[in-house]
């Protein structure tokens, strides 16, 4: 809900205001001051703290935190989990948005609500459900043990939990976007003799590329940063089932603060990069929407 509204935000940059419909200057200054101070304390300070703490013992100590087999293996596992979860949810998002935005069928709204479900579920519970399904005491646990398949406290569990928490990201960006665009261009392509795949690759995909990238960026940020769900299924085996966020936790709990914040600074940089790309994409999407509005006029 939240990210979607960010895209569809009005195109008019700022309202023209008359004296009657805005506050006196001193009042505006105070309100804006409070808002900015609040953002400074609650958003900017934590971000600054990450980098300050990471560099507390100097740049050498900072870099040394990454020359560590456990850190490297955590990075590899995080890349692997995101490398599976993002493409899987990307394919799902494309299929779901095509099915939902291009056809009418009973139960469509229910389906949209169900796709959003993982966002409503607490991260801890997202991990818990897989423990209850695949864990030793879980429904499939004994069978899996017999066949020597380990999911919980192993890489597959981490991947599954990551897929679950990032499940809706791409679909929820694409469904409203494709509904808004309508099916006429696809109908035109098909009537001109294009096959379904040709229509998808040549017409649909170019039309939704920015929205798709937007969903992928958010999906990736969450996949690489997920903590709660992964924590439940990981078992915290150093060098084996630790992702980057879990590695941060371990270092922190061992009072290796510089190491913890150094690794955390990687994630913070990823978050900043995500925000920059996200903001640029929102701008791009809004500009294109404006163009289409003008075109329809």
């Amino acid at each position, binding site marked *: 809900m939240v990210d979607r509204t960010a895209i569809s935000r009005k195109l008019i940059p700022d309202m023209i205001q008359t004296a009657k419909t805005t506050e006196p200057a001193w009042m505006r200054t105070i309100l804006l001051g409070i808002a900015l101070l609040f953002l400074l304390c609650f958003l900017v300070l934590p971000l600054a703290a990450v980098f300050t703490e990471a560099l507390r013992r100097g740049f050498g100590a900072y870099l040394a935190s990454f020359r560590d087999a456990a850190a490297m293996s955590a990075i590899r596992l995080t890349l692997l989990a995101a490398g599976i979860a993002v493409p899987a949810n990307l394919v799902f998002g494309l299929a779901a948005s095509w099915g939902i935005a291009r056809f009418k069928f009973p139960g469509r709204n229910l389906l949209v609500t169900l796709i959003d479900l993982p966002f409503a579920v607490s991260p801890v519970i997202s991990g818990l459900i897989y423990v209850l399904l695949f864990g030793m005491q879980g429904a499939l646990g004994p069978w899996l043990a017999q066949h020597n398949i380990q999911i919980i406290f192993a890489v597959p569990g981490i991947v599954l939990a990551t897929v679950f928490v990032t499940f809706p990201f791409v679909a929820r960006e694409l469904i409203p976007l494709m509904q808004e665009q309508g099916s*006429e*261009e696809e*109908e*035109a*392509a*098909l*009537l*001109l*003799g*294009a*096959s379904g795949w*040709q229509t998808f690759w*040549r*017409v649909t995909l*170019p*039309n939704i590329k920015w929205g798709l990238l937007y969903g992928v960026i958010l999906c990736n940020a969450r996949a690489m940063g997920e903590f709660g769900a992964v924590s439940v299924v990981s078992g915290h085996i150093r060098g084996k089932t630790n992702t980057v966020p879990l590695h941060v936790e371990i270092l922190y709990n061992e009072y290796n603060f510089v190491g913890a914040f150094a690794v955390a600074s990687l994630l913070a940089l990823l978050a900043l990069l995500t925000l920059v790309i996200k903001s640029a994409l929102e701008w791009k999407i809004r500009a294109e929407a404006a*163009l*289409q509005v*003008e*075109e*329809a006029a």
Partner: protein
Amino acid sequence: MSIEVRNVSKTFGGYVALRNVSLCVGNGELVALLGPSGSGKTTLLRIIAGLEVPDAADGSAVIVAGEEISARNARERRVGFVFQHYALFRYMTVFENIAFGLRVRPREERPAKAGIRERVNRLLELIQLDGLAHRYPAQLSGGQRQRVALARALAIEPKVLLLDEPFGALDAKVRQELRRWLRRLHDEIHVTSVLVTHDQDEALEVADRIVVMNQARIEQTGTPEEVFHNPASQFVMEFLGHVNLFHGRVESGKAVVSNDASTGAPIFVRPFDLEIHREARGAAPMRARVRRIQSAGPSAKVELAGDNGQPILVEMSHDRLRELSLRRDDAVFVNPREAKVFLDDYSI
């Protein structure tokens, strides 16, 4: 390549969009589907294109160029369709848009690159946009976009050309230019065409034949002259231009107009079928008073109020208006020259 629609119905949920409609369009003909919004005309067009599937019913068929439309997949149908809002591919240039239908053909049917270029250039010439091949749709005006959409539809050498309110999104002047251009184009290439419109002037000016639709049915089919001068129903009469409503009775095959609304049948008279005289003439002249004179435009329009205050609109030539030298509030007499009475199915 003719089009034949037989006993087609279409419902969306509980909403009836088409009720047992049949229609024939002859080879090379340009037929307009005319009606108010919600009359089912666009649904009928989309069914002919194969975009919608009619309700299953015995004897129901849509035959385009001798083949049931559903028998072939979209790729083999070769139907040209022009959308109201153009539906141009926004990430392709004008050239790429027009070439699209050729480029997506399977390798063995696809013309060579040079062949595609030649055909696109010919079409660009036809729509008079030779210089704009490398523009994107967003960089074109509405009228230019619609011409590109038409060229794109023609590129695949369609068996039939279907146009859904093609000028509906354009402003009045461009709309007039484009519809004349479309008529000339049709006279040149003679592709069987169906045009959906809610604008009676457009239909009257462009089409060989007009199909008037109302409430999911066809009200009348005929040449522009037929539907205009011999409307088959009150709806057609009213839809094709302004009419005055009187009441009266039918006496030996002739309408006798009276202003008594309580008795008698409704009588419809077009504004140019009424005459104004200074003195009483004819069988049953009506008294009226001049309310407003509007003499700007090709003909003069006079608004009057009848005895019981009902508004009457009369159209006449400027010469006749000068002759009468009417002024506001003048008392005059109005005579119908020709009238239509719809008594159930009986009309004179």
